[in-house]
């Protein structure tokens, strides 16, 4: 069974090729069958392979499948080979399965779009690249998948390219992530020159043998890889592209910009965790970046009017939690949160897609409302997703994963009160902004007609994801509540366990209680201010009358003015320099040479008078002068 591993990334690529070559000639129905079918096969295969991996684990809990040697240049011979272990298996299953559900949903969502086959072709290419990224045994192959998902992200953000704003958003996403990718590429060069291989397992072994903890080379290469992860996962300071990336179709936001691609950075750090353990300052930086990002993005999410932008900031914030977990060495907690986040965030985005379709592409939450009776199923699934995102205690998956991160941020030897406090405050904000959009969307009376209701194909993914958002957390229960450690025990075959300094269950229990209360308070807070009623609107307007509150609101609405900052200090100086140097000053040299040639030509062309006698005179004089010179010498 494990030998079929290569088919899992290969099938989506086959789907992409089929659609890219013949998509124009196919009918909508056959496009949907092709596009979804290949992903479905891939997902089914991923589940089968995982089942066989779990039931009869190979020696050492990993399986490597080498297909061929990619190239051979001197001592550099990267291979096309796939590596399956606990970490990549969980990521693979989640990506393939959630990807399949979102493809299923897209059949209905994209119905009637003129780019129907293009959409499915890009989506298949994306899933193929993402699976390549996850299963790659070699950092170079991982980088191929990494750039592949970046390309698909660009193509899909600008999917409706006729609106130039979408094109600009796509370019912004591409350029901002490119900064990170460049850093990662340099990191790969550094790793190869210092250790002589790019095979991940080989690198990790060599690194732990040759480099002591805190070795400068380890710190440098970990920092460079972190640069790549920060770009892809939209963390501070490269987070600005993700909110704009919402210009793409909603299933794209669900799949690429929430559930899978943006967590590639988390995967990269977890995959190379040995390197990060060797570089304690970088690992601390990971935790701090995560903590700061989760707060910054959470506060911004509080003020957005566009429902998808709220969810985008929420995604940045939740990935911040994962970075926080990685930074304190809680590797399996980060992967746990990745998994639950993939479920509930995909669910929220798909629910949002239904709402947006129903209201004729309306994105403004203040113009929504009253959808509870119109879209009952969406209402319930959205409620479950919101509850899971706000970590409603005991029944939701989000509670267990977030709680694990918070507890381990406090109890890890690399953690601390400050990191915990940031996560704690973040949890409070999360429940406010989540239920803010929930109440504004579904409460009150209907403001506009529902133009389109979701079909069966769009409903199934919602229900499945809602169920997973509830029960997905039960595979890992804390010591205080059941103490089931299925996930972390399994992940321990690939990732080291947490180095905890405290294991005080009573503290853990009381902290869990406080966190739960705080998330409930957040929901009540949202209930007080964000219902669709004149009374609530009045309350909001009263707050806005305070100039300070209004200024803060604007500041947060613009995402802490990061765009303005980059615009002022990077984009505009660059554009100014480009404009000033429109006639590139280096060209002066070459243009000067051309000018000299032309001037000499003008001068010399006077001598070509067309008068034969003058030529004869010239020849005679020349001979006289030459002979004279020879005589003198």
């Amino acid at each position, binding site marked *: 069974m494990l030998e079929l591993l290569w088919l899992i990334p290969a099938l989506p690529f086959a789907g992409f090729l089929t659609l890219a070559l013949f998509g124009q000639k196919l009918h909508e129905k056959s496009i949907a069958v092709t596009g979804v079918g290949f992903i479905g096969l891939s997902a089914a295969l991923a589940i089968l392979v995982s089942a066989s991996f779990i039931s009869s684990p190979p020696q050492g809990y990993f399986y490597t499948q080498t297909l061929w040697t990619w190239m051979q240049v001197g001592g550099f011979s990267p291979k096309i080979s796939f590596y399956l272990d606990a970490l990549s298996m969980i990521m693979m299953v989640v990506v393939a399965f959630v990807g399949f559900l979102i493809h299923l949903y897209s059949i209905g969502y994209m119905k009637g779009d003129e780019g129907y086959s293009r959409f499915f072709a890009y989506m298949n290419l994306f899933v193929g690249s993402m699976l390549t990224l996850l299963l790659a045994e070699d950092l170079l192959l991982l980088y191929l998948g990494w750039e592949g998902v970046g390309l698909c992200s660009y193509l899909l953000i600008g999917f409706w390219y006729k609106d130039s704003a979408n094109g600009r958003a796509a370019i912004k996403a591409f350029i901002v992530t490119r900064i990170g990718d460049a850093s990662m590429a340099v990191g790969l060069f550094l790793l190869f020159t210092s250790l002589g291989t790019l095979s991940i397992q080989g690198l990790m072994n060599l690194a732990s043998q040759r480099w002591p903890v805190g070795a400068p080379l380890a710190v440098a290469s970990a920092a460079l890889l972190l640069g790549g992860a920060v770009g892809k996962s939209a963390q501070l300071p490269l987070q600005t592209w993700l909110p704009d990336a919402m210009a793409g179709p909603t299933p794209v936001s669900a799949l690429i910009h929430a559930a899978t691609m943006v967590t590639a950075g988390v995967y990269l750090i977890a995959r190379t965790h040995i390197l990060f353990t060797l570089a304690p300052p970088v690992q601390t930086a990971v935790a701090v970046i995560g903590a700061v990002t989760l707060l910054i993005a959470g506060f911004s999410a509080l003020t957005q009017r566009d429902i998808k932008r709220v969810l985008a900031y929420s995604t940045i914030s939740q990935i911040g939690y994962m970075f926080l977990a990685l930074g304190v060495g809680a590797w399996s907690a980060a992967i746990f949160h990745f998994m639950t986040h993939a479920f509930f965030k995909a669910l929220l985005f798909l629910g949002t897609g239904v709402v947006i379709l129903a209201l004729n592409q309306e994105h403004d939450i203040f113009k929504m409302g009253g959808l509870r009776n119109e879209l009952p199923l969406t209402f319930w699934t959205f409620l479950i997703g919101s509850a899971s995102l706000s970590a409603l205690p005991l029944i939701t998956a989000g509670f267990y994963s977030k709680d694990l991160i918070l507890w381990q941020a406090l109890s890890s030897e690399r953690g601390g009160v400050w990191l915990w406090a940031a996560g704690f405050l973040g949890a409070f904000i999360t429940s406010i902004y989540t239920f803010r959009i929930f109440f504004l969307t579904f409460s009150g009376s209907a403001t506009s007609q529902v133009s389109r209701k979701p079909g069966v194909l769009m409903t199934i993914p919602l229900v499945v994801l809602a169920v997973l958002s509830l029960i997905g957390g039960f595979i890992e229960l804390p010591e205080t509540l059941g103490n089931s450690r299925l996930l972390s025990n399994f992940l321990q075959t690939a990732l080291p366990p947490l180095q905890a300094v405290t294991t005080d269950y009573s503290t853990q229990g009381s902290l869990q209680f406080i966190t739960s209360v705080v998330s409930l308070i957040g929901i009540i807070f949202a209930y007080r201010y964000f219902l669709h009623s004149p009374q609530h609107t009045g309350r909001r307007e009263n707050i806005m009358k305070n100039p300070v509150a209004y200024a803060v609101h604007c500041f947060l609405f613009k995402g802490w003015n990061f765009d303005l900052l980059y615009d002022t200090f990077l984009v505009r100086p660059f554009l100014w320099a480009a404009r000033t140097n429109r006639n590139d000053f280096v060209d002066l040299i070459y243009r000067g040479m051309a000018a000299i040639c032309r001037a000499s030509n003008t001068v010399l*062309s006077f*001598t*070509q*008078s*067309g*008068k*034969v*006698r003058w030529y*004869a005179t010239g020849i005679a004089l020349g001979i006289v002068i030459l002979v004279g010179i020879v005589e003198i010498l």
Partner: protein
Amino acid sequence: MTAAVPLHHGLIVAGILFAVGLLGLLVRRNVIFILLSIEIMLNAAGLAFVVAGSKWGQVDGQIMFIFVLTMAAAEVSVGLALVLQLYHHTKTLDADSANKMRG
């Protein structure tokens, strides 16, 4: 037996002939006269060869003169053909009027 002409006399005559030819080439505008002047210069060179050949008692100078003659005949035939063409195009034999290829 006449006394041998001294070498430098012959060379001076050749030099004068050459200078006359060159001067004619430079100052005359009629193409026919320019061709004539070239002939004079060629003959001046031929005379120098013959004089030098007799000085050293070698036949090489006279052989070279034969070459110069054949070359001159060829040159004149081409030159006269060009003159005909020039006249055909410009209705004049003025060399300065054929200056269409000036820069």
